[in-house]
């Protein structure tokens, strides 16, 4: 599903941005739905931050339009766009305490002092920072600063909240906690979130839809599950999770299954339509491969290397035809105890493989 499921709040039309000869945005088309949690995901240099700063108004577009609820905002300065924004380094004003930081957007909007005070209290409660109103930002931990930055960006109830890698400076455990909180906040407030990250796990766990960017172009848009299970290109399959890639020859197609040959082995790939021309490339997720299947193993290989990760174990197999195959199996019930050099059989189901378009 590439279109939002709710009416579009923000539309990006043919957004182009060049830095000298480098094309940072190559004509991005995107509709963001009302109340959606949309993630812009990509490696560094993919244009995700440029797109976010263009939406916020800090970066001017060379071509294209931005339309917010039917109103063209392309030429509006950042302060007239009414987006909330959370910056990568939080950017809490160091000369103001927590209360004044959160009140800042309200003060510049000329709210009445009583209303400001009520809203600040409300926002502090929202991010569970009630006791911290009089602290200075420098007296807060990273996670607390992050919460205040969120409260500040949300205090004036913007219709869209822009988040620029807000969790990247935090340690892993805190990041996981804040992911839950962000998701909860999004659900409670119904505000549209546009979230930039390079962290695929973050994108998968929080988003309604993910936009995968590379070299300033949209690679694929979709719900996390759809993207993960049906990547269209090698880049997407590789960037979102891990994948094995096999170049196959299609020998036949019947009943929604393509008969494929690769590396001297034959197997079936479930598909609605196999690639034209009889050649293609499939992506195969490591966790879809079974080691030492109980009945009738398809392929024989040998374990080259294993890596124990606690909940999972990553195994690199050597197969004479496929080359190296990465397998990820749960440690608590794998068919074998992985050990370097051990010969092992393996197979996968027909629906484990996905044909890619850029073979």
């Amino acid at each position, binding site marked *: 599903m590439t279109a939002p499921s709710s009416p579009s709040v923000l539309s990006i039309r043919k957004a182009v941005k060049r830095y000298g000869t480098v094309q940072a945005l190559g004509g991005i088309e995107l509709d963001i739905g009302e109340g959606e949690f949309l993630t812009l995901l990509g490696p560094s240099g993919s244009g995700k931050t440029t797109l976010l700063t263009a939406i*916020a*108004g*800090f970066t001017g577009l060379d071509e294209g339009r931005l339309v917010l609820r039917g109103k063209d905002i392309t030429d509006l*300065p*950042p*302060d007239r766009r*009414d*987006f*909330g*924004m959370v*910056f*990568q*380094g939080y*950017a809490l*004003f*160091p*000369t*103001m305490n927590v209360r004044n930081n959160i009140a*800042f*957007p309200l003060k*510049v*909007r000329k709210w009445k002092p009583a209303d400001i005070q009520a809203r600040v209290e409300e926002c502090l409660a929202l991010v569970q920072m009630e006791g911290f109103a009089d602290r200075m930002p420098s007296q807060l931990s990273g996670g607390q600063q992050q919460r205040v930055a969120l409260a*500040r*960006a949300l205090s*004036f109830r913007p219709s869209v909240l*822009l988040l620029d890698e807000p969790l990247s400076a935090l340690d892993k455990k805190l990041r996981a906690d804040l992911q839950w909180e962000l998701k909860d906040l999004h659900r409670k407030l119904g505000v549209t979130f546009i979230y930039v990250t390079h962290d695929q796990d973050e994108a998968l766990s929080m988003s309604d839809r993910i936009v995968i960017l590379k070299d300033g172009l949209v690679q694929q848009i979709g719900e996390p599950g759809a993207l993960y299970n049906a990547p269209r290109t090698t880049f997407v399959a590789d960037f979102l999770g891990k994948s094995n890639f096999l170049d196959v020859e299609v020998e036949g197609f019947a009943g929604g299954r393509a008969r494929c040959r690769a590396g001297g082995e034959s197997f079936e790939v479930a598909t609605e339509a196999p690639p034209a021309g009889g050649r293609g490339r499939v992506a195969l997720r490591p966790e879809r491969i079974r080691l030492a299947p109980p009945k009738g193993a398809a392929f024989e290989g040998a374990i080259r290397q294993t890596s124990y990760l606690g909940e999972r174990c990553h195994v690199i197999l050597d197969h004479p035809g496929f080359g190296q195959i990465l397998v990820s199996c749960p440690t608590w019930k794998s068919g074998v105890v992985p050990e370097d050099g051990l010969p092992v059989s393996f197979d996968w189901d027909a629906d484990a493989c996905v044909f890619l378009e850029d073979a």
Partner: protein
Amino acid sequence: MAARAFADRHRYWLLILPALAAMLIFYVWPLIQIFAISFTEPTTGFGNYVELLSSRAIRTSFVITFRVAALTTVGCLLLGYVVAYAIYNTRARYVGLMLMLVLLPFWLSVLVRSFAWIVLLGRGGVVNDALIGLGLIDRPLALMHNEFGVLIAMVHVMLPYAVLPLMANMKGIDPSYVAAARGLGASELTAFRQVYLPQTLPGIFSAALLVFVISLGFYITPALLGGGRVLMISEYITYQIQEFLKWGLGTALSVALLVATAAVILAAARFVNLRKTLLERG
């Protein structure tokens, strides 16, 4: 072993001993002498200080000194702030050049710079000639040998002392704060006033302190551009000692200036962290 410990403990003192000795002989000792002379010449007692407090001319000179120093400070802050701001908010490629232009006057003698102003501001100077030539005025304006001329040259000479601390301060301010303010709905002016300016207050304080304190004791520029009509206290002291050979009054005035300067610094210390401002700059 004991000798070794002794050596360790005293090594640092030995290292600073030459500098310390120079300070004591050439700085502290003369200062004590000045202090002593002010109480002993021409007669022993508080005579010089009584004269200092009762003399109208001296009071006027002190007032002029503080007024010139204060106005110089204000001028330097206004101009210096703009310069420092421009240096950190223009394209990176010009930063080196702009820094050069700020530092260049530092390498030129104050004397040369002050004479340059005489060439510009004199009755037959460049500015008056140009204005007359353009037909804007009939007679030359009095641009120097008054407080106006002294101020212009003082601001020029002192400007780097304001720019440098302000620059050091602004260099540490992340541009994302102003961007955040804009993103949260503040206009350019509001973002500057409420977010940027407060963060530069330490720089403003240290620049003000530096310029004010140096200006209080400045001699060459006021002497040249004041033409004897704007008597700041340093020049007054010089007159007492060189022209009238009144060592007692001259030294008493020196002590008074020293005390006044110390008072300014102490007062400033209530608002500024002096150690941070003056020692950890840059």
